[in-house]
């Protein structure tokens, strides 16, 4: 099926697993699935790609196209993009803040 083969060739640099790891690493996908092994819906994946494209100033297609792949391979900061990501903050302060609220 040429369409299927063509789509697959787009990701020749990077397989879908790398894309998922990238999206988890920078806060676009829940990381906990790594441990729980919960499966993801295609909508969840497409939404994550759209968020990344929006943050990076690309057209929001929801699929990992050439521009999105290029963005994923650009040098960047290792901190996650998701503003709610608590990864880079001492988490007991988070609890303190929550208990205060």
């Amino acid at each position, binding site marked *: 099926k040429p369409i299927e083969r063509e789509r697959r060739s787009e990701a020749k640099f990077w397989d879908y697993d790398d894309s998922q790891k990238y999206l988890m690493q*920078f806060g676009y996908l*829940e*990381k*906990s699935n*790594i*441990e*729980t*092994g*919960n499966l993801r819906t295609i909508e969840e994946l497409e939404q994550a790609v759209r968020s990344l494209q*929006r*943050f*990076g*100033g690309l057209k929001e297609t929801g699929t990992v196209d050439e521009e999105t792949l290029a*963005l994923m*391979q*650009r*040098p*960047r*900061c*290792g*901190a*996650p*993009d998701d*503003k709610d990501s*608590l*990864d*880079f*903050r*001492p*988490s*007991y*302060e*988070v*609890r303190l*803040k*929550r*208990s205060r609220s």
Partner: protein
Amino acid sequence: RRYVIQGQKWQNPIVTYSLVNQTMSELDAGQVRRILHEALGLWAQHANINFREVYSTDADIQVMFARKFHGDGYNFDGPGKILAHAFYPGTGIGGDAHFDADEKWLLNEPLDAEGTRLFDVAVHEFGHSLGLGHSSQQDAIMFPWHHISYRGKDTIPEDDRLGIQSIYGPRKKIYGKNPERHTPSTTTTTTTTTPAPPPRPTTRPYYPVKNTTGHPWEGLYPHGRPYTTRRTTTTTTERSHHREDEETRYRTQLPATTETTTVRHRPHHRPHHRTTTTTAMTTTTTTTTRRPYRHRTTIHPNPCNTSFDAITLIRNELFIFKDRWLWRMNENDLHRPTPFEIHRMFFGLPADFERIDTVYENKHQKIIFFIGKQYYVFNSQYLEPGYPRPLTDLGLPDSIERIDAALVWSHNNRTYLYSGRLYWKFDEDTNRVELDYPRDMSMWRGIGYNIDSAFQYRDGKTYFFKGRGYWRFNDMNMSIAHEYQKSSARRWMKC
């Protein structure tokens, strides 16, 4: 999304920073320090915050060049892709900025040179160290992907300026002086008088020993160096609370705060009599060997007012460990049984151990104790031959000084080992940790770092313990199921 504020900010009027590993051979430390100073100075020009360089492990912002696994659970990946990362303001690792030593850093080269300008990345990372998150404005300094954001103009992009000023306010004008002449106090770096710390071992990557503001539970970095209390804005009560808590964690029991129990010892047992004198801020324990007593008063911790070193099910019975003592809780008993010394049930532990770090029963019905950098495998009550062995036999890095907790997780019945900010999944069949680890503890949302213990109870739920309280964990959400329960004693010690 425009600029994002991460909620934390530095309270102290002057934020100190330090380049931790100055022995970086590839880069000239003097040039690097100049660039760090300029990068911080750029933020100081636009917000009411001041910086001072120190050369000690007391700094709020510790800057480090590291490669691959460097102890914070966020490994670097070699040249390209991830250049650096930084942590939002806070104690412990909060505020620190780490740069990938495998990158080709440009210090003075012109803009068009091949490589990554350290200044651009440093300005971005210090934005995180001050509390800013990433911005989707492509020209902003806080845009996640590397770009030349600042070309020496006298101001920073508006998005960044509004962001930093919403946290610290605009730079205060000094009246009565010629404002043009007044430059932000960051430009005057006073070289600190604190003596340079002793040269660090270059054998393995140096980890900054960070301090904590007296939070009683922060204990150790993964490589086991303890935090020292630093000059902080915390009140003395908090600090004395911290010191007191710190001591309860490590000192032998004092009669004042614990029940006294007389435990008869077999005459051949040569008891060591421990006297503990506590001066203002230190506890010294002198041990003298006396002639054997027929019995001696031995003090165990107050079970209704203590944290646990370990809590686990062994042969479906609940065991709670604290210092040299264990409680064997039977579900049907109404009252708490009298504790007894661990080495009177498990034969083969070192005679002089003060406490165990953790213990669990694996799927082969062996009982595994972790003490310091070693682990002990027991077949029922007897130590198996060939033990103890070092943690590195399990595939753990040599920098790990102890295991905080060992858990057979109720979700998948796999074994997890926790130490400091990191955790590993352990394969009982190969007897080694799995390859894709360690990972950062933030995966177990709400639990935090440096936990005391964790186990799966008979109800099939997983519980995490830290300090004197605990959480029940929601496996499907990978987060705590309820707020921190301040007292474990009622639920687990039948107090």
